[in-house]
């Protein structure tokens, strides 16, 4: 599976179209293919508790509304769905 920059912990979003690599300080796009330094950022879509229900929308444990690209870095209940 190819990884995109928007899923990397070194991706700094500027807006929905633009971002900056925190390591290289270069302008990159969210959908650019990742480089060798890629490290996956905890997001709801990577969590075991996330359940996709519609396109771009789902829930946490079937209870709380969540969306796949929500940053879960600070979620105490986050559990990786698959290993990096």
């Amino acid at each position, binding site marked *: 599976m190819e990884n995109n920059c928007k899923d990397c912990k*070194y991706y700094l979003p500027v807006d929905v179209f633009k971002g900056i690599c*925190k*390591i290289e300080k270069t302008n990159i796009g969210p959908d650019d293919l990742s480089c060798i330094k890629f490290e996956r950022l905890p997001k709801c879509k990577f969590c075991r508790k996330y359940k996709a229900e519609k396109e771009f929308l789902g829930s946490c444990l079937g209870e709380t509304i969540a969306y796949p690209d929500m940053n879960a870095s*600070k979620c105490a209940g986050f559990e990786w769905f698959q290993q990096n």
Partner: protein
Amino acid sequence: MRSVICMFDSGYTLPQGREVINFYYPLQYGINGIIRICEEGIAETAGTPDMDRIYFFQAVILMLQGLQSWILNHAEEARFLSSLEKDEKQKLEYDEIAGRLEWLSTSRPGSFHDALQMIWIFQTAVLNEDAISGLSPGRVGQVLYPYWKRDMDKGLIDREKTLELLECMRIKFTEIDCFASMGVVGGVLSGNTFNNLCIGGLKKDGTQAANELEMLIMEAGITCDTPQPTLSLLYDEKLPEEFLLKGIECTKIGTGYPAWVNNQVAMEFLLNNYGHEGMQSEEARAWSIGGCLETSPGSWMPLELDGEIHWIPGGSAPATSVGVHFLSLPKLLEVTLFDGLDMRSGERIFPSHGFALESYEELWGAYKDYFHRAVHILTLTNNIQHDAWRKISPSLINSMLKPDCLKKGKDIGQMGSRFNSTFNVESCGTANLVNSLASLKKNVYDDKKYSLAEFRNAILANFGFKTAQETGSYSLIDQVATKEYHKWKQIHKAGLSAPKFGNDDQYVDQIMADWENWFCRMTHEFRSLYDQPLYSCQISVSTHGPMGAVTLASPDGRLSGTTFSDGSMSAFPGTDKNGPYALFESASCWNHSLSQNSQMNMKIHPSVVKGREGSRKFLELIRAYMRKGGFHVQFNIVDTRMLKEAQAEPDKFRSLLVRVAGFTQYWVELGKQIQDEVISRTEYEEL
């Protein structure tokens, strides 16, 4: 689009904003200090008859604890960035950011830089809490001055570093966005967020309040020309000449700020409308602009620094522009002429007024009747919306900041603020209404040149022109006549030739005075959700575009679908032919302190204000209007030809800023309706 008598309902879209934030509590106590105040409030309240206050205190504590985690998340991110950084200077800056945030997550700021960071934290926190437009930071230069002066005296900061921080502040404020419906964000706000920063005015003791930090704030507005925060200069005769000339220097760069606002007129308005809630002249001096041009009450709070008390101003009322939003004055006249029907959509708006409209007085009476009905029903609607808002989505962080919510233990939806008479009735298209009434009075009732029926038919026929939607042009420039034009040419000419507001012509200025004197007073008949009287508010923001688009031709010769006049004291484009001083005479035909504001936009060619001599003349021009009692004037110092080029080739003008009606915006962000209106504004080529 259906009939539009009124545009924008704040209760469902942007229930907060158009107000001034208050930074006193975080600066004085820090977050842990505020939590302690809440805990003391709980201890005092438990078991007493008003123990409901506990819910407010506890909610504020929970919010502040969340806020502390949020601040620390940012500190953690700064530490992470520092860990990746190889440049030592940059690494140090990240570490300083992290250290500052960690400190501010619990404690009060200790330096100017800390204090600036603290106000940004709370500005963002409130914006994250609710859908808001126009959360103005207020008189930031006076709030932060004690910290800055102390740091300067100790050599901890210099002007260069201060300017850099103020430029960074401008970037951060420009990043703010507003999420509401497309009609509101695009049609009303033109994508603007109205974070108005005020400078000047008076101190608590009545002496002038301008300071060196405010000079640097203006300098940052010149060196970093961004739409936010827009600047408003609270003009008072006591302000030093050097400060006023700096304002002129800033205005001359063409970004449209600072707007010039009359301090004494605003204070008189506040005393008239908040006196019954206990406001006196000393407190009236603490006012500021909330949103684009909404006069908002403030209070002086005692900030202690190194054992010395500094009285700092801040907002002490909730949103000051909620209520009946943007009534289309020309549309209401159209509906009056057609006995309650919207002839464009075919919808009946009001029951028949039953008048034959045989005299001007009867027409004026019928208009007032419909206007009254509109305000009545919209007041009730708005009160219901805001009642739902305050129950479902009460404001906590914003409430906590506002005096006297922490003392009363009540949020702003429960009248926790010191001042609560903040609902208004907003108008749009004033000059078109007044000019249209003047045209009908002159052509139909006084000279009896045409019958009212003939004017109605001419309106329905759009005076023989294609509509703005057909031509794609929204000003009177570049309109296209149809083959039928010859039938309507004479009556159209009569409409265009009738006396026009803005020329020091008593015939039409008396109509303006009659309108203002009636409008400003009739609003007091209606009661807000908080059982307080309403007041008038006269800003158009961008509504004069979309409201004009759904209004037929008007008796003043304006064509169907074209944009109304902007603001409320601006003349209709091209109709003010006797120079700016004649416009000022017309605009000062009524007492502006009757209203929360009035709004005048002017366009001046850059060559007119060139050099030191030009600056002096420019200041005298503004001073003349202020001395006549004008409330507000703002300027586009721009060449109309350049605006036309920018419209044709926007990619070449992506950084061009223009003043619309209470706000500065990138030209390329404006819709064509508003661009056409700005282009068509009268350009003064001499003063």
